[in-house]
């Protein structure tokens, strides 16, 4: 599937910035289910951002806002060709072994409730992970505003609601508690309908002798050609599309416009 992405994030500041610096993880990497046709990410001055390898297998770039600026922006403009490989991630650059993805983090630390999700499940790791995806989604309705980017998995599960990020965190935590290495993935999803202005997140689990396998708990689906994979890590903090620090600027207002279009369907 040929997917075109046009993603603009605009920041406006109430007063001039003293300094602003962001890490941008909006560079898809090639794997057997994803070829990069063209891709560029532009910073506030229209400059093309040059990515570096972040150690976890992702490409990231620094974007600095010039001192005195009242606005900043990140503009992603690209096209990828995706293929449905039944959820399996093949041919990806994997600098770290699956064992690393058994670590827990502040955002994915389990509690007894999370550990209990997988405690009685039987079957192989793949079957248990799929069952966990449903278990997580059964217990958490999709609701914007119930959580924010810093909500840990335990709190989101206790709240019984969240967005794709929370579903992915809880699923990763539950899989690790069940002995299955798991990670958080950020990216885009083509839905074929008018897009919500947000990126997407899902999880990948490691199945012995088969490899990494993508599960999208927010949508209860196995990852396929509609998913554009950007970055992965133990949690959102390691795979966030954009994180930044700034000095000055006062109140910030954020505008995001995102289009994920299928070139074949010519949908706008």
């Amino acid at each position, binding site marked *: 599937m040929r997917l075109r992405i046009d993603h603009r994030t605009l920041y406006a500041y109430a007063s001039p910035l003293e300094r602003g*610096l962001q*890490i941008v993880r909006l560079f898809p990497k090639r794997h057997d289910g994803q070829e990069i046709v063209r891709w560029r990410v532009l910073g506030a001055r229209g400059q093309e951002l040059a990515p570096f*390898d972040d150690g976890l297998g992702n490409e990231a770039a620094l974007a*600095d806002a010039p001192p005195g600026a009242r606005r900043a922006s990140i503009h992603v403009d690209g096209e990828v060709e995706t293929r449905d490989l039944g959820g399996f991630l093949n041919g990806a650059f994997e*600098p*770290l072994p699956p064992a690393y993805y*058994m670590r827990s983090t502040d955002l994915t630390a389990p509690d007894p409730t999370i550990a209990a999700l997988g405690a009685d499940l039987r079957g192989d790791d793949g079957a248990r992970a799929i069952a966990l995806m449903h278990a997580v989604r059964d217990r958490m309705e999709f609701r914007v505003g119930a959580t924010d980017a810093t909500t840990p998995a335990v709190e989101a599960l206790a709240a019984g609601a969240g967005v794709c990020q929370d579903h992915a965190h809880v699923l990763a935590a539950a899989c690790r508690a069940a002995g299955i290495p798991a990670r958080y993935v950020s990216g885009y999803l083509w839905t074929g309908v008018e897009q919500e202005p947000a990126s997407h997140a899902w999880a990948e689990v490691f199945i012995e002798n088969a490899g990494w396998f993508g599960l999208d708990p927010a949508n209860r689906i196995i990852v396929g050609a509609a998913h554009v994979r950007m970055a992965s890590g133990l949690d959102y*903090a390691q795979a966030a599309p954009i994180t930044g*620090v700034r000095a000055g600027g006062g109140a910030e207002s954020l505008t995001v416009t995102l289009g994920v279009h299928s070139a074949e369907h010519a949908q706008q």
Partner: protein
Amino acid sequence: MFDEMYGSDGAPRAPYAAIAKWLEQQPLETLRAKSDEAERLFRRIGITFAVYSGGGDTERLIPYDLVPRVIAKQEWGFIERGLKQRTRALNAFLADIYGAREIIRAGKIPEALVMLNPAFEASMQGLAAPGGVYTHVAGIDLVRTGPDDFFVLEDNCRTPSGVSYMLENRAVMMRLFPEFFARSGVEPIARYPEMLLRALQSVAPRACEGEPTVVVLTPGQFNSAYYEHTFLADEMGVELVEGADLVVEDGAVFKRTTQGLQRVDVIYRRIDDAFLDPLTFRRDSALGVAGLMAAYRKGTVTIANAVGAGIADDKAVYIYVPEMIRFYLGEDPLLKNVPTWQCGREDECGYVLDHLEELVVKEARGSGGYGMLVGPQASTKERAAFAQKIRATPDAYIAQPTLSLSTCPTFVDSGVAPRHVDLRPFVLVGSNGIEVTPGGLTRVALKEGSLVVNSSQGGGTKDTWVLRG
């Protein structure tokens, strides 16, 4: 029990012959007066350190003991070879762990011990540190139990401190007893700052042209080792900076100056990994430099010691250092490890709990002598309380036999008496090789019979003499 001056038979050992004679000639009042003078000198220098917990006066002088600790030339030759060997292996391990992980593939060290270790930093993966150096300054803590028995107690590969005490102790010694020092034939140590600067310059990024700009990065004046940070910056003739003095622009690190931004090539950082870069590590850190890890990965700056170097000095990883020496160097280890039990392993935990009265139990991730149990010196009640802690989180503890640390003559209230000592030599690694300053920092447990030499636990320090002949 081995006394470094009197051996086991009471006759002064050769390296101490001059000291023994000198001590006999010094009236107690002279020693007392010199000791007071030493304290005044240290106060004037302002060399203090902060002690955590306990309340009260947190800025303290580390007590300085007048009586030097002596190491014979031959003994030092052996120690130095052992230190260089061990440090080479630790660096090879770090390069491997953040590279191909051959040692794990070969089954020589458990994968989970490394991958689940808090000291393992994924953001270092695949980063080939300039010169292949990851721990540029290593503090390898040694203890001695007999004439030829040296053990490594622990490795310090992150930001080992104490070198300023080593240097100041020598300066004070030379001031108090200039003639005695001059005729004793002691290896000089004053070149340490120059050696450190050379090692740091040798690992400048490839992109660096001309003389590399080195800075010392400190968390600030509230850090317990702040004195040392200012001291080293002064002695090396480089700038002491805090995170706010540095900025990342166009993927490189710059120092703010009144003349604008100046490029920085090598950062000798004395800030823990977690606080180095709020964009990669703790977001609430105000001590670090945003974007520093990105610059490091792009190869525009060198961080010393490397981020993630702590995986090599983890107390559970320590157990595998002799294996590292065999694996990477194909050599037999010269310096011995202390046998260590991991409470996280069920079979070993049972042994530890059954033998608490013989063992020293330490926190696997702790440092500074906080939270440890010296079994033979603890009360039954203290041991029982500690056993509870071990049972609650066994992974957090390791145990070792209580070594009978050597003693050295030490000037205490009652006169000169034997006290237990250890040694922290400082090993410098550059792309041009490994150097060890003769001697190191001798720490002494001032309390009679005590085996805990940490300054935070009432330990003092001594000047350490390596004899030339």
